[in-house]
């Protein structure tokens, strides 16, 4: 049996307890944060060292077994959903902080280190790691690299790609690759940027060097209410047009505040159609200057009420509702489906109107939470998987939102990744030639195609089946390419 053969070969190189193959041992690994998709892996391995990772890859290459890398399993797009006849390479045990250098302001980490742990380790030096995905208590830095994770502060401080200086990793052939490093701008192609966000299709990352930055002396957040969602959208554009880049700029619609308020008691205005949270950070003088400007712009844009946090406890309370929006959705609905499209900010109004029309059409409710500052939307479609047809409707509802994101000049995923969840929507965003280019990159790094196969990039055949061949300028691209 294939499973016996593969598990046996892996037990030659790893301690017996690091190789799981019994049904009850595999069960906990059958999904990541996208629980709607489940698949039991053939074998799970839990290496403890970089060299064990290398040997696992060499073995899998030799036996031609697909390898799916996994960190903490918090991903929302099914990027680490197991392969039915593959090895799930769990990197959670490589969880050491190898170095924190406060003078050079860097940390060197194994991939299983949790995101928040980095900032905790740097705190005594007045430094922190900026990207803060909502799952930061649990998610791992290796997973952040694979997904190019964002967070609520990336408008000012950037995504993972802007905060990672270098990585070490292995190809499926077991070759060590070092990209970037402590010295900026290495010669040659920027393969570091290419690997970040590549969803485990190119390399398995075993070490990450991140940039640490000084913690701002002070942060305060303004909470503003609006009687019309469009006014809130205009306020967002006006803040930026005024030359202000807030540390965070978030929007929640009425349905979202109604869902979270009873749960977290953040003090949200339940009469408002939308609320905005805008954070300023820096020196005390700078923060008061910026808060005054933000308040003036919001008032001009039609804010019906404004409250500014007057203490750190209050600031955290204002944010608590936003950070708990997903659990709150789970509290008011048996299931929810979280989308992650990004659109140019100016299209927030039309997008919200369209989502409202879709709610009617699909007979499902949708609450909206946005990283408004960078146009990244998280509509949460509420449904009940036990009611026949509801999941299918939610799925189609989501796909329609994503198609609209592309039409409005945006993208199907801002920070959660494509994984298996949004793979069909990739056919809408990219032409056949563009997807072919992605496969050529994949082939350059992973000639046998064993790293996380079937994720992130749909085959031409899959897109043909999805029936959404992307036509640009009236001509079918690559008309001569066989539609295999």
């Amino acid at each position, binding site marked *: 049996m294939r499973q016996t053969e593969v598990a046996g070969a892996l037990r030659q190189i790893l301690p017996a307890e690091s190789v799981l193959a019994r049904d009850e041992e595999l069960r906990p690994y059958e999904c990541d944060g996208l629980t709607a998709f489940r698949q039991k892996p053939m074998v799970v391995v839990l290496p403890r060292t970089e060299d064990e990772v290398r040997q696992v890859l060499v073995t899998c290459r030799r036996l031609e077994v697909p390898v799916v890398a996994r960190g903490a399993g918090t991903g929302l797009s099914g990027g680490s959903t197991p392969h039915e006849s593959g090895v799930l390479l769990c990197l959670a045990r490589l969880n050491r902080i190898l170095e924190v250098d406060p003078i050079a*302001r860097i940390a060197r980490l194994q991939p299983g280190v949790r995101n928040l742990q980095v900032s905790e380790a740097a705190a005594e030096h007045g430094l922190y790691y900026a990207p803060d995905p909502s799952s930061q208590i649990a998610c791992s830095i290796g997973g952040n690299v694979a997904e190019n994770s964002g967070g609520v502060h990336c408008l000012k401080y*950037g995504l993972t790609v802007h905060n990672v200086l270098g990585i070490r990793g292995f190809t499926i052939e077991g*070759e060590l690759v070092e990209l970037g490093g402590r010295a*900026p701008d*290495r010669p040659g192609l920027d393969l570091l*940027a290419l690997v*970040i966000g590549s969803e485990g299709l190119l390399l398995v990352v075993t070490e990450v060097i991140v940039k640490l930055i000084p913690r701002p002396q002070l942060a305060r957040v303004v909470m503003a209410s609006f009687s019309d969602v469009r006014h809130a959208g205009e306020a967002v554009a006006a803040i930026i047009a005024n030359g202000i880049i807030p540390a965070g700029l978030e929007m929640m619609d009425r349905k979202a505040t109604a869902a979270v308020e009873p749960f977290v008691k953040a003090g949200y205005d339940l009469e408002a159609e939308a609320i905005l949270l805008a954070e300023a950070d820096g020196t005390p003088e700078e923060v008061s200057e910026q808060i005054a400007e933000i308040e003036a712009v919001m008032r001009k844009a039609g804010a019906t009420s404004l409250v500014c946090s007057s203490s750190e406890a209050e600031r955290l309370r204002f944010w608590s509702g936003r950070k708990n929006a997903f659990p709150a959705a789970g509290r008011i609905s048996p299931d929810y489906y979280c989308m992650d499209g990004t659109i140019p900010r100016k299209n927030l109004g039309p997008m919200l109107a369209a989502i409202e029309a879709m709610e009617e059409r699909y007979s499902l409710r949708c609450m909206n939470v946005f990283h408004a500052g960078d146009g990244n939307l998280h509509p949460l479609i509420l449904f009940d998987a036990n009611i026949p047809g509801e999941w299918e409707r939610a799925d189609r509802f989501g796909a329609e939102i994503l198609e609209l994101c592309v039409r409005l000049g945006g993208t199907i995923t801002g920070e959660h990744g494509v994984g298996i969840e949004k793979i069909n929507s990739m056919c809408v965003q990219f032409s056949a030639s563009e997807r072919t280019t992605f496969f050529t990159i994949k082939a350059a790094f992973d000639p046998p195609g064993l790293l996380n196969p079937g994720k992130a990039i749909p085959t031409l055949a899959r897109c043909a089946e999805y029936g959404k061949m992307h036509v640009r300028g009236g001509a079918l691209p690559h008309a001569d390419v066989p539609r295999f």
Partner: protein
Amino acid sequence: MDTSLAELRERVIAAHESRRPVRLQGAGTKDFYAADAEPPAQSVRAPTAPAVPPLVVDLRSYRGISGYEPSELVITARCGTPLAEIESALAEQRQFLAFEPPAFGAGDSTIGGVVAAGLSGPRRVYAGAARDFVLGTVLLDAHGEILHFGGQVMKNVAGFDVSRLLCGSLGILGIITEVSLKVLPRPRREETLRFEMPAAEAITSFNRWSGQPFPISGAAWCDGIAWLRLSGAASAVSAARERLGGERVDPQSALQWWNALRHCTHPVFNSTTLWRLSVPDTTPPLDLPGQPLIDWGGALRWYPAASDDDTNHAAGALDSTGTPRPRALASAAGGTAMCWKGVAPPGGRFHPLQPTVATLHRRLKDRFDPHGIFNPGRLIAGL
């Protein structure tokens, strides 16, 4: 399709079919920035098979800003658009390119060249590098396909990040015909401070200051003077100035100083031989002859030849393994060294790649450009 883009596409297809190398050309301000900047003497090539001269494709006619919305913080422009045109459009809206791309004194650098070279100015380690601001690109590949990657939004993780891969690719994967860049509001206040101190103390100070919440946007050293630029809200800049001390530099001289660094017009660039070392910013002064110019808070070190008539690589003397000393020292510190000006040293002008990384480069090049038509040898010798 735009006529000039259609025409460009036809030329690429023809070159691909006839396997004719193509040399992509903007304003030519960065012609020196190439692995093959000084091609080997004719005798290296087989005398019976003279190489086909590359077809020069001038991209300057494909130009124009195709989209700019200040409140979206994004500008989109065709590759031939002059950098100066983009910067003046941004200045009207009090915005700017925060990575401060060098124009090398001439105002006619094109935005395509800026992105293809991926070079950044003094703000690089504080605000980000060129690649950090690239949001989207349109690529004309060797098959004549017009491919769109990334887009006009800040957050986009759909598909591989090909746009950032193209930034700094020096055109070896195809023609970057259009780019979308993230832009930022101009800082409300900018001030420069001067401190008299030796290089070692400047490097230590830059690192210490960078670990504190000061709004630093430039830190450089030359001739016994450390220069520190602060940018941001007026209150933040004055609070930092009071804590840091130093001597205030008048705005005109400050602008001149940072522009000379940004555009590589500082006197150090007049040297006949010049090495550019990228090292971890905490690296102490290196044991090389001559006075360096230090930028990026210590991470960038320019080493000129010791004297004007020294064309013999004084700074670039070879060590016992045949490696130029600047390169050996940079490697030992965990960095890289490029011979920016002067006779190309053994090992080439750019720092050699690690073998596994070089293999990935070859495979990518083979797949993007199977006949090797685009800028052969420009980024990596023989590729």
